[in-house]
């Protein structure tokens, strides 16, 4: 039996996400707190959770469905995300491409797909992610670094170290 998830009227369906990468896509979109923090903070106090969310700019307003590890003709297995009331900015799409290079964005308006586009990892990633190297000058002088893709890995323009795409996001 296929998993049933309700349709959305307005928002985005992100299809062809690499299996098990869906949760990281939600982190990229700041729709869930990063895995290093407890996702469900309401138990402590609403106030603390809200404060934490606002410093991380976590957006808790949307209804989200995350389908994990379902069969796919294209990919064998995949994740699917449905996010109500949220569209994806180009910068976010590039960042999603880091961990899910085959992802497809479907913009939904009035319950219909009005636009489809595949994410693409650009040859040069600018101001998308910080350099994971703590000794890198970009960590002191810039908000994010610049990376060039090199056989599926990314080299920081400044410290010249190579990173996996995952290291940049997670």
């Amino acid at each position, binding site marked *: 039996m296929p998993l049933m998830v309700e349709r959305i009227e307005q928002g985005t369906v992100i299809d062809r996400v690499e299996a098990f990468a869906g949760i990281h896509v939600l982190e990229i979109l700041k729709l869930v707190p990063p895995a290093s923090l407890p996702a469900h903070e309401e138990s402590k106090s609403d106030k603390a959770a809200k404060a934490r969310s606002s410093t991380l700019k976590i957006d808790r307003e949307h209804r989200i469905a995350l389908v994990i590890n379902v069969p796919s003709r294209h990919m064998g297995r995949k994740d699917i995300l449905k996010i109500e009331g949220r569209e994806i900015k180009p910068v976010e799409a590039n960042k999603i491409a880091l961990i899910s290079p085959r992802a497809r964005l479907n913009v939904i308006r009035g319950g219909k797909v009005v636009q489809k586009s595949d994410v693409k990892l650009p040859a040069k990633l600018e101001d998308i992610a910080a350099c994971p*190297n703590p*000794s*890198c*000058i*970009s960590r*002191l*002088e*810039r908000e994010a670094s610049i990376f060039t893709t090199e056989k599926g890995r990314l080299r*920081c*323009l*400044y*410290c*010249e*170290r*190579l990173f996996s795409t995952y290291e940049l996001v997670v």
Partner: protein
Amino acid sequence: MADLISIRDLEKPTIEKLLESAQKMEKNLFTSHEKFQGKVAATLFFEPSTRTHLSFQTAAQRLGMSVVPYTHSNSSSVKGESLQDTLKIVDGYADALIIRHPAEGSARWAAEVCKHPVINAGDGGNQHPTQTLIDLYAIQKARGKIKGLNVSLIGDLAHARAMRSLLLALGMFGAKVKLIAPKGLEMSEAVVEEAREKFGAQIETSEQLDLAGADVAYVCRIQKERFSDPYQAAKLQASFRIMPELLKSAKDDMILMHPLPKIDEIPPEVDASPHAYYFQQAACGVPVRMAVLEYALREG
């Protein structure tokens, strides 16, 4: 005008030109270079490196340039806006900036901030491109070529930034490289792969200290400060010392190189050996850095 930030930015013809011009500089070390007179080089050393600093200052002065040295030893203020401000101020004074800073990528970032050419004199664990050029120049000077030579890189290859850049450069110039490192201190696999892919470099690896067959043996020190166990570090260092007996197994014309300063990886009694080449290698620093300054300040 051009920056010199990383060996990765340099194409082979550019390096060949630099080596050629270094040769001319060495021949005419004591003649005056009028076109550089009145030019000012600023040396910004945010971490101490006396040898490199002196070498750059000498190179600039041999070209007839004036030098504005800036040394900074107070690490607590080496951060944030003050660095950017310092760079901008000095950029307003000088025709070229020579920068050494512990943060990786600092030279490239400085080049973005400054209008005048920036020369990287070492950016933390990342690059020290003039050292690599000096190494190539010294090898070529001693052996007349680089292509086809058997070059062994020996020691703590995991931490020595000089060795990573040199491996790429040797790959580019078609030397056959043997990487000899104690277990756990091997050269980064990514750099080995890079040299193989970009240049088709011939690279073999070994854990056994052995000089047989080498035309060039390039030794770097075991960075003891990187070890949590000083006893283990001392043991490794002892097993990787270049002792006079070991040199007996070397080819007669093998040259022994070292970026200096050497601690105990090459004992002083080796200095008198005909293989010892590290002091001549160090002397190449001035002409090579003269060539680099000329490259940085060239018109157009």
